[in-house]
């Protein structure tokens, strides 16, 4: 079946460092999204990015659909970036499938 794999599972950074989160998916996805979840909180959509590169603030998402991968780059990390980042795809079943997430901790 369709699988979404995220790496690394966890990441600890010092404030100001950059982060690169990876998402690989096992079959052609029609849509890809990145979500952020504050500890114990709601998931917020960061990017709807089925292909190409998108930017918002310090975040950049790049999806290469034919290579079945996407990345989320966080530049100049801040303590408020701490939380869990999820990648999710919509495959041929029409349902959204989530990866297990990358937990990011940014230390001051």
């Amino acid at each position, binding site marked *: 079946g369709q699988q979404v794999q995220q790496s690394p599972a966890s990441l600890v950074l010092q404030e100001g460092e950059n982060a690169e989160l990876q998402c690989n998916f096992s079959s052609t996805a*029609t*849509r890809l*999204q990145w*979500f952020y979840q504050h500890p*114990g*909180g*709601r*998931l*917020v*959509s960061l990017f*709807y990015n*089925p292909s190409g590169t998108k930017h918002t603030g310090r975040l950049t998402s790049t999806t290469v659909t034919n290579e079945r991968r996407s990345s989320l780059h966080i530049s100049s990390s801040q303590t408020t970036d701490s939380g869990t980042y*999820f990648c*999710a795809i*919509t495959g041929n079943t029409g*349902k*959204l499938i*989530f*990866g*297990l*997430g990358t937990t990011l901790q940014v230390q001051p």
Partner: protein
Amino acid sequence: EAAVTQSPRNKVAVTGGKVTLSCNQTNNHNNMYWYRQDTGHGLRLIHYSYGAGSTEKGDIPDGYKASRPSQENFSLILELATPSQTSVYFCASGDRGNTGQLYFGEGSKLTVL
């Protein structure tokens, strides 16, 4: 900003009891979803709906029912709650169009004793 509201936010239930989790969206989205989130499993889809009167089984529907009486409301029903259903439940709504973005509620923490 799209709005999805869940209630209750916290619930303690007894084994064998009935639990209803409610979700309301003001986005006029056709699609609504119920997920549960557990450590080591990420988010898993329980039920979803394409519109009022429709419910579809997700990946883990056993032990759950769903109801979509209107465009705005989507409920998740546990007729006979079990401790294994202790989890955090998230409702989401989304467009049927090409944007595909999902908007999530704040989650409902359910503890079944």
